[in-house]
């Protein structure tokens, strides 16, 4: 049997392999965190400081293990830093400075992200249709660029919110528009990690479809509703729980979305559609399991964080609010999926369909509840 997955590296070996860039990267993380601690100490509470400090080893480790991620983080950080420098504390410069207007302001960066996601989807599919290795490689590069552009957009948006007014400033994970950008970036990264781990670009055409759909929604939302405007935080959202609850949730959503698209690939391959362009079924099954596993683990954490937050903001950790209830439904659904996989005999098509339906349920929990059921319950009624 050929090697279908890459071996993870042991810690000792990892340290031995580190190059100059790796060390510079880690040094930059330390310096960045140190600078923030020195200059913005007064603005952070104990939780925020400890997050900041913990982020240094976490991101060092992630970047060391995965050089692609490291490079993307470095690029996004440089871009965001350039943008902040160009702004020179004046929001009006977004209209005047060429680089800001067409590349580095948050909205423009997010538009670039959107365009790059579409290009990447096209490139991956070209790779399938024309059987061109080159096109698929381009697809990966474009996906990386899209993730970098999205991350830059979020970082700059964070800064812009403080330029509006220090009391308006907040981390951009507070409304549907912001989390959609986050979703795009995280889903792309989750996909890219599997691309590396399983050494195949053949899942790109499928996974990029769901990311494109998310970007399509993002554009619609922004062009018809002007959703991109930065809004100040209502009191219920002013909580440090939000800052970890939302990203944890979106790792979950992103992983579930990837699993569902792999399920689509599974169902196609089983029917002989594009079979030559899809990895073997056991690889698909493995990716699906891995994605749902990580998604489930993070979603569990996210739901619990949500409960802790609710306890603080609304006085109960659980009140069967539609959003909470749908989170539970999603969670139960994937718990059932995991048990299903453990049961002998229930494999393959059933699991694939279930993962696909799982995405429908997840999308409803994530979007549908806000759109269809919101009238029933005012979230944080203050």
């Amino acid at each position, binding site marked *: 049997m050929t*090697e279908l*997955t890459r071996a993870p590296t042991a810690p000792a070996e990892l340290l031995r392999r580190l190059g100059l860039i790796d060390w510079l990267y880690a040094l930059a993380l330390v310096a960045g965190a140190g600078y923030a601690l020195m200059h913005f100490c007064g603005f952070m509470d104990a939780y925020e400081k400890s997050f900041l400090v913990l982020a240094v080893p976490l991101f060092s480790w992630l970047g060391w293990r995965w050089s692609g991620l490291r490079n993307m983080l470095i690029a996004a950080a440089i871009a965001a830093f350039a943008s902040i420098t160009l702004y020179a504390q004046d929001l009006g410069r*977004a209209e005047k400075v060429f680089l800001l207007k067409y590349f580095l302001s948050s909205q423009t960066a997010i538009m670039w992200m959107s365009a790059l996601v579409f290009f990447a989807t096209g490139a991956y599919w070209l790779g399938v249709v024309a059987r061109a290795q080159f096109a698929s490689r381009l697809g990966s590069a474009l996906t990386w660029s899209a993730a970098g552009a999205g991350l830059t957009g979020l970082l700059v948006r964070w800064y812009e919110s403080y330029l509006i007014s220090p009391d308006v400033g907040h981390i951009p994970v507070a409304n549907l528009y912001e989390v959609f950008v986050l979703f795009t970036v995280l889903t792309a990264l989750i996909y890219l990690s599997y691309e590396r781990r399983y050494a195949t670009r053949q899942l790109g055409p499928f996974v990029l479809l769901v990311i494109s759909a998310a970007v399509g929604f993002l554009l619609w939302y922004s062009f018809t509703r002007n959703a991109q405007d930065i809004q100040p935080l209502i*009191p*219920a959202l002013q909580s440090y729980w939000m800052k970890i609850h939302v990203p944890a949730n979106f790792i979950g959503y992103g992983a579930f979305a990837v699993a569902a698209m792999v399920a689509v690939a599974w169902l196609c391959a089983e029917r002989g559609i594009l079979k030559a362009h899809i990895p073997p079924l056991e690889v698909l099954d493995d990716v699906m399991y891995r994605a749902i596993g990580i998604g*489930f683990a993070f979603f569990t954490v996210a739901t619990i964080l949500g409960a802790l937050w609710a306890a*603080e903001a609304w006085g109960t*950790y659980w009140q069967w609010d539609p959003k909470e209830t749908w989170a539970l439904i999603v969670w139960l*659904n994937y718990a059932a999926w995991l048990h299903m996989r453990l049961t002998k005999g229930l494999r393959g098509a059933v699991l694939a369909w279930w993962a696909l339906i799982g995405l429908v349920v997840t999308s409803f929990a994530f979007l549908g509840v806000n759109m269809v059921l919101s009238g029933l319950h005012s979230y944080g009624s203050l």
Partner: protein
Amino acid sequence: MKKTSVSRALFELLSSMRFAISLLTLLAIASIIGTVLKQNDAYNAYLNQFGPFWFPIFEKLGLYAVYNAGWFLTILAFLVVSTSVCIVRQIHPMTKEMRAFKEHARETSLRLFKHHAEFEIGDYASAEQSTRAYLQQIGFSSRENPREDGLLIAAKRGAWGRWGYFLAHGGLVVICLGGLLDGNLPLKLQMALGGKKPTQGNQLIADIPAASRLSEDNWSYRGNVFIPEGRSSDTAILNVADGILLQPLPFTISLQKFHIDHYETGQPKRFASDIILTDKKTGQSLTRTIEVNKPFEYAGVTLYQASFDDGGSKLSLRAWPLAGGAPEDIEGAIGEQRPLKGYTVEYTAFRPFNVENIAEPPADSQSALTQFEAHLGSAAKRTEHKDFRNLGPSLTYKLRDSAGQAREFLNYMLPMEQDGRWFLMAGMRESQAEGFRFMRIPVDDAGRVDSFFAIRTILLDPKQHERLAQRFAKAVAQVDQAANPSADMQAKLKETGLRTLQLFSLRGFESLGAFIDKSIPEKEREQVAGNFIQILKSIVWQAWMVAREEQKLPALEPTPQHNAFIGDVLNSVSDSFHYAAPVYLQLSQFEEIQASVLQATRSPGKKWVYLGSLLLVLGVFAMLYVRERRIFVLIKRDGKALFALSSNRVSLDVEREFAQHRDALRQALNTPAADSMKTAP
């Protein structure tokens, strides 16, 4: 352990994976109901929604509080039982599994493993050494079993990950049981066994009977404490089905001040209550500020900033009777009900300011490119044309007639500018479902509504109609000097004015419109309508002058402003026919008193739920990421070795690791004795 076949079968069923999957799915589906149907609403609302036939059926099914319904709790109970049975069932095999190395495995069973391989060994003694060394190097712990035909080394790694199973599933049981303590089961028990009964209707707190008061030692509750500024409270109110219960608290809370801070855009930024809490037993007091996301716990009770309300703001009002007559000054307070002209007025809400976005939407004619460009740049840009303006204080009240029917009114205190003119907005609606419809009352040069009401009274007073028509005819005659009108002409003009005015005073433009539709040919309608308006405006002007004469005020010159004013008065008088109220209440002065609503919670299950959550997270990560691997190496004296690998999950990693260990072992065992002695540590 001998069991009857029935209980054995039950045990099998409850602990089967398929049953677990079915339960998880069933629970997920059942949970949907409560997200589609609004929960814990007023029973009246359900009755309206479903009608008298379905209402009681749905009530029986517990659909108005699904998550407390017996059948729903039963599904949950099954989940808890099933999980517990599962745990119990697994304790023995799993702990055994974790400890065991299985060094007594038989060769035939090893050959049945999906992952096994056989290879030649170089030298028996060094093969043993190399295997031990290799297993140690890859972090496996091992146990050996010398056999007749050689040596079986059984090794494992990550078997402790099975603890994850107990942590996760045990955590789940703990969460459910903890949640049960905080749910409304304790309350249901007190109602069933302690004879507690919710009370209905609007009573004073002091009048609520003992049967509706819970004990101070109640160990689990969640209720709201309503405290106006400068007052105090020691009771929480629990909403139960269609009534309330009172929960005395172990302390008294007095509210010093309630704060609402706003952003520049008018969105709320901070809600905070400055309170003094006095312990009933010790008499000690503490001063605290409670904010959203910053609760405060005392004596096992946690206080949260839940909401806010009006605490009985004091209002000075001027009641303008719409039937005519002098205005009357009255006093009121939010939350009060008072009789007023055969109605009951209920003052429901007061807002000291109303920030609204009054910007016009941008023109649609933008090109696609400019629209796109509007979405570039910083996200701080206001693409949505915003112009925030404070519209000043507003008052909402209801007028209920003797039949109990109520209409709701929304009045602003300050005039608003529209097209360069100023109006006081008076909103009315028949039911909550509608939006407010506004009567725009024009204010005079002095910024007051007095002129409007004076004109209106005269205009609609039948006794004045003759006089107004007379003056109208005379005024027209004066203007048309050239024509030198005859007395006949004058009489005709007066007749026209009178008829028009009488028609208008029936239902305003509505009755005029009906008349035109009925008796004027279609072609001429527009022109006739224009004439009517001209006539009415002149009459309104006369009415204004009459009013001023009566008040001994000088007559006015007709300026464009005055002309616009009489047009507005005319529109507004016409609208006033649809303003179904005996009076218009103008807010003249107020003293705002706010109230804070704190939520008081005693939730003994919370720490259990948190503990269970922690176990659950640890367990889930352990189950998913601590992978159990077992390696068996049977080294035989006949020069062969059998290698087998197993894991507790199907995954491609297993394939890869198998290949990796197989190749490494083959190399390590296959090398001639001399070489392997060198490499051995």
